[in-house]
């Protein structure tokens, strides 16, 4: 059984209960249960192949071979199609950033419909990332990797989604850009956004997160408070094979 962190948590924005997933014969997730409280930033850490991306895809409704319960702000969403989940308030930043080559930068930003009162209208995004304004008519994939990552996160923020699912947003980014992503997530968190973050970079995870789940072979093996992760960093890094 996963250990829980001591702090009592406010009402969960995202609750995953008994989630299992398969890829044909292979079991990718086994009875995963986790929750993310309103306004909390929680990371999922684990080796490659532990099932982190599959977990986010299941929550988003992109993986069909799955079972279990997923609740968003108390509402069961496991029966909903992906687009309905997005409209219910889930924002998704996929592991490959998910920038469309056939859409201009601004089109990439405005493709997803606004689902709630947004604190990130286009004007604020452009103010924060002037490069996106400069390149707004260029193809999305003409941006650098880091700029594409900012675009992907900004796109999710713009919709006003209350819960963001981010899949390794720091992967392949230069340290200065990693800091930029961290600042962006902290700002979103201050504004009340709930975040479930898949992360390999433990240092980054501990700078932004409240809590962590350690995933191994499709199961949650530990739930860790941030201080625990900092204290056990070298042990955890060995486990992650970094």
């Amino acid at each position: 059984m996963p250990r829980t962190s001591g702090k009592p948590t406010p009402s969960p924005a995202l609750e995953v209960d008994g989630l299992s997933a398969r890829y044909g014969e292979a079991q990718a997730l086994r009875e995963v249960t986790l929750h993310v409280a309103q306004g909390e930033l929680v990371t999922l850490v684990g080796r490659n192949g532990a099932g982190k991306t599959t977990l986010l895809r299941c929550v988003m409704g992109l993986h069909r071979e799955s079972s279990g319960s997923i609740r968003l702000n108390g509402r069961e969403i496991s029966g909903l199609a992906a687009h309905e989940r997005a409209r219910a308030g889930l924002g998704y930043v996929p592991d490959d950033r998910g920038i469309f080559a056939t859409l201009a930068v601004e089109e990439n930003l405005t493709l997803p419909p606004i689902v709630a009162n947004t604190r990130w209208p286009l004007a604020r995004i452009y103010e924060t990332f002037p490069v996106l304004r400069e390149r707004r008519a260029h193809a999305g994939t003409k941006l650098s990797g880091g700029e594409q990552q900012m675009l992907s996160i900004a796109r999710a923020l713009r919709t006003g989604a209350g819960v963001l699912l981010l899949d390794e947003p720091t992967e392949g980014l230069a340290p200065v850009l990693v800091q930029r992503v961290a600042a962006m997530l902290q700002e979103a968190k201050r504004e009340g956004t709930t975040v479930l973050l898949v992360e390999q970079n433990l240092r980054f995870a501990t700078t932004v997160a409240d809590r962590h789940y350690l995933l191994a072979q499709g199961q949650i093996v530990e739930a860790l408070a941030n201080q625990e992760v900092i204290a056990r960093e070298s042990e955890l890094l060995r486990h992650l094979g970094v």
Partner: protein
Amino acid sequence: MEYVALQLFNGLVNGAFYALLSLGLAVIFGVLRVVNFAHGALYMLGAFAAYLLLQDFGVGFWVALIVAPIGIGIAGMVLERLLIRRLYGLDPLYNFLLTFGLTLMIQDGVRLRYGLQGQPYPAPAELAGSVSAGLVAYPTYRLFVIAFSIVVCVAVWYVIERTRLGMIVRAATERPELTRALGINVDRWVTPVFGFGVALAALGGVLAAPMRNVSPLMGSELIIFAFAVVVIGGMGSIAGAVVAGFLVGVLASLAAIFNPALENVIAFALMAVVLLVRPAGLFGSLEARS
């Protein structure tokens, strides 16, 4: 020299039909991931609809140009709902079997009723005669076909590139799953997109009626070239379909000047070269297809 100019115009006319058919195929393939082998038969139905409107109801070309594509487009939407829908997520072989089977059924259905022989269809009186430009005279109706199809292609391009609907179509073409995850109900657009692609084929058929005899097999010859054009332009690429359509039409007609046998070969030679040099097609990107 006059012959070259004439062939150039003939090439543009052929290219106009390739472009209209390939455009419909590209839009359908992009959003549905279905290769619609029935496209040629639906083009033929467009021509037949124009013919029947005139024979049975006395409705002329201009009305048919609007009514036939809308009617056949709606029939296409019904087809998608009843049959094409069942293909999603299946092996592409079923795609081939179903749409090719539909082609045979539509063609034979028309043949059963009207026979194999082509039926003549008059060009509208306003476009009778020919226009002389310097050394050559060219049929007015054919010039209209070139101009009209360019207008249609530009209009489609505008919708795809400049409107929110087009943005959704592009996104769904590139990455359907991600588009859904971003809150777009892609499925809602599937039936209208199929109907629209079919309407473009039918529009091509109406335009062809005054130039070619209206016959059950008129689409089967054209569709082979349209597929070559789609591959040359890049599967699912809108601009690619249009540019490659006119390119193939013009190159084939110009090649025929040297040797008439080349006319039918050039599209496939070009397709082979493009597949070797740029496997994703002139305007396609491999990235966008994965």
